[in-house]
């Protein structure tokens, strides 16, 4: 890492996300949090790295696993926890829960809930912004599973043709709930879509700390989208905890803990 200050800033935000998620794990057995929670533990770097390349009025459309993006985008922690507790002071008045952390009345919006249609939602919003002559970029976040949806292909095609300022961000953790990629996809990651500027990040690093802005760097991706060249950025990452909830899930034997041990052996917690 050439720039110590950048690293510290990014690490601090990633650590904040991790600590918030661990606090949720502590609180959950008390049943004060009524909402189901899909934790970002293991995937913090993607949110932190990408949001760092955005401007304050850029929009992020995240999935149900959105705590990391909400925090990386500067969302209020008080409002987030109030939302989890179902209180009036929550982000959505306590009525929407963990999956729909959407601060209203702010330019930097974030919408949670269901990854499948985010490519389309982000693309539509960016198109609206484009028509108004604004320079906003919309980031549509989705998992690898969403790339199997027809609307994903349509969204990329439309964005490329109409030069919509959207960054399509795939958080590729290889899973759709408990289903592994080979059971779902007959295509290789990143190989079957309309031609846009695209880049696929290898597993280690995941968006954090690339000095010198190589072509796949989130800042470059966002800048490309702002220039009306929509960008597809796939970042390979790994979910540590179970799909939904606060526990571990290795005892269900659908995935092995060896990947996690590998990361820990390299000093990555």
């Amino acid at each position, binding site marked *: 890492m050439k720039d110590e200050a950048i690293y510290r800033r990014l690490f601090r935000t990633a650590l904040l996300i991790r600590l918030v998620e661990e606090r949720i794990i502590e609180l959950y057995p008390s049943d004060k949090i009524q909402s189901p929670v899909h934790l970002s533990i293991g995937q913090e770097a993607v949110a932190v790295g990408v949001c760092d390349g955005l401007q304050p009025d850029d929009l992020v459309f995240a999935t149900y696993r959105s705590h990391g993006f909400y925090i990386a985008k500067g969302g209020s922690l008080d409002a987030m926890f109030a939302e989890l507790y179902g209180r009036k002071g929550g982000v959505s008045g306590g009525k929407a829960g963990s999956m729909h952390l959407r601060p209203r009345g702010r330019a930097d919006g974030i919408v949670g809930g269901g990854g499948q249609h985010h490519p389309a939602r982000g693309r539509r919003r960016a198109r609206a912004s484009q028509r108004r002559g604004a320079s906003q970029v919309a980031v549509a976040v989705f998992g690898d599973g969403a790339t199997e949806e027809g609307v994903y292909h349509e969204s990329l095609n439309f964005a490329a043709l109409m030069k919509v300022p959207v960054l399509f961000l795939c958080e590729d953790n290889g899973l759709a709930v408990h289903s592994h990629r080979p059971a779902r996809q007959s295509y290789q990651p990143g190989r079957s879509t309309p031609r846009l500027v695209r880049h696929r990040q290898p597993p280690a690093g995941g968006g954090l700390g690339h000095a010198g802005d190589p072509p796949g760097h989130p800042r470059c991706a966002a800048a490309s989208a702002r220039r009306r060249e929509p960008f597809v950025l796939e970042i390979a990452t790994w979910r540590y905890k179970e799909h939904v909830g606060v526990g571990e899930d290795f005892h269900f034997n*659908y995935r092995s803990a060896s990947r996690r041990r590998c990361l820990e052996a390299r000093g990555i917690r």
Partner: protein
Amino acid sequence: MLSYAGALLETMDAALADHPNVFIMGQGVDDFKGIFGSTTGLAREVRRRRACSTCR
């Protein structure tokens, strides 16, 4: 007493057993959590062709 999910499971299991032209397809049909217990075990090996997941 049979739960709602249990009733769904029992019915689908019976349908698969009684009628070779019955198929069950949907997101999570073969998930180990069995869609809250309503599809647990339906996709076991002998029937894998007829009970499968379409999930993403």
